[in-house]
């Protein structure tokens, strides 16, 4: 079952660099799809198309479609605010908002108009448990979130997007600044989460890509080189360039 269908997506930034050229991809529901490849390949750009965060940067031209549940989200008429509530995102550097831990989690829901205390409370606990950080912060929810360590902050950010009960979660190198133990916790959490969510992950290393991927897509210079089942792509790539990158011959 496909959650997202990307058709002929091309995008060019105002400074002339082509960032995506003619991407076609089906992204499966309840699985982790990994977008990997060297820097500048267009992975983050693609992520930012899916929640329309690219609206706010200097995009020169964009063509193609991204269908989500049968609707084109690139359509100018799409309600981007509602879209971003359905498509959560976690960034490379954890960005906790300048408020308490609890506020960080309830903020998005309050913006969406949720006022009932019990609902908010329940969302805080549920999302912190899903992000595997409940035990570490349950006694200090009123403290400023910035007081947490980097690894904890990143899981708060994950919990923050989970609190909105999104359908899709985008993760842009979520563990690039984390130690191996925190990284392990985040990856374990993702494996749990994929039962209920569609996860699209840009990993920070090939190893992480191989560890986590159900499906993997290799991007090079804005081009989708190879896309397929994770196990196969990493053990038996069809394309020479994929094999060269996976085995460390370049990159």
């Amino acid at each position: 079952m496909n959650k997202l269908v990307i058709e002929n997506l091309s995008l060019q930034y105002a400074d002339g660099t082509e960032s995506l050229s003619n991407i076609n991809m089906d992204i499966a529901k309840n699985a982790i799809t990994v977008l990997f490849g060297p820097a500048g390949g267009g992975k983050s750009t693609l992520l930012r198309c899916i929640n329309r965060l690219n609206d706010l940067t200097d995009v020169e031209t964009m063509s193609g479609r991204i269908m989500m549940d049968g609707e084109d989200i690139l359509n100018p008429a799409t309600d981007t605010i509602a879209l971003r509530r359905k498509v959560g995102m976690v960034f490379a550097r954890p960005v906790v908002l300048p408020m308490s831990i609890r506020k960080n989690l309830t903020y998005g829901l309050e913006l969406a108009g949720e006022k009932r205390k019990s609902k908010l409370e329940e969302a805080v606990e549920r999302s912190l448990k899903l992000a595997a950080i409940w035990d570490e912060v349950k006694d200090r929810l009123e403290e400023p979130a910035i007081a947490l360590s980097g690894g904890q902050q990143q899981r708060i950010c994950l919990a923050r997007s989970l609190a909105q009960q999104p359908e899709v979660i985008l993760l842009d190198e979520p563990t690039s600044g984390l130690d191996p133990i925190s990284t392990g916790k985040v990856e374990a959490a993702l494996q749990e989460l994929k039962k209920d969510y569609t996860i699209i992950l840009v990993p920070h290393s090939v190893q992480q890509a191989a560890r986590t991927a159900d499906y993997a897509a290799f991007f090079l210079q804005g081009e989708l080189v190879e896309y397929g089942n994770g196990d196969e792509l990493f053990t038996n790539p069809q394309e020479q360039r994929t094999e060269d990158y996976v085995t460390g011959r370049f990159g």
Partner: protein
Amino acid sequence: MDKDLNWREFIITRAIKASGYSAIVFVALIFIFLLREGLPTLGEVDLSTLFSVRWYPIEDYFGILPLITGSLIVTLGAALVAIPFGIGTAVYISEIAPRAVREVLKPLVELLGGLPSVVLGFLGILVLSPWLRTTFDLPTGLTAFTGSLLLAAIAVPTIVSVAEDALDTVPRSYREAAWAIGATHWQTIWRVTLPAARSGVMTGIMLGIGRAIGETMAVMMVTGNAPVMAIRPGSLFEPARTMTATIAAEMGEVASGSVHYHTLFFIGIVLFLISLAVNVAASSVIFRSKKRSERILS
């Protein structure tokens, strides 16, 4: 090392040190002078006279309360106008305006900050006060409110400039994080960007208000200079007289060493204490938030 170079090094460090200390020395000297000339008032004028409501020095009425309330009402009015307007402008320039507009607007606002206040006062007399008089049907256009508007015009560029810098340093990632959880542009500004830039915005407000309290020329030109108690709600639309304007207007005609002379310096002390209090209050707010974040980051 070269002996010559050693000497130069010695002289330069000493010179820099001396200029650094001299700033402190000058402030201390000014303060001592102010105290020496102002404190005798307390022996010469009864406290009950000093804090009475009548300022008429020629007949030995030295009540400074009308001047204090005059300064307060003018400054308060200025703050009420300048703070929302200044923050609004800063937010527009930093968060909403397209890049081209922004690159024109910011230098323009800063240029406005460089206008001599006399020029603003001139505009106040010729344009603003007749307009206020006819629009609000007042007996005179030279009111505390006129002064407030001019002071606001003086304070706004400072507030905008400092607050915009503060907003500009809020990392882009904060905004993206807010957008990514479905915040609208306005919600992002109001709940994330502004709070994150809070200490810088506060500094801008305090610097702007500080400029307004100390401003003399423009205020003297447009407030009507009537030393009446400004404590009724309607006082804003009546003439008032500020402490700074009193000192500026009367200091030139007073006999050195007289009671009147000492009282003018006493007003200077009061003014000094008020701006000191504003500064201390401002820096304690800023200091507290800074200490908190520093403690957290360490």
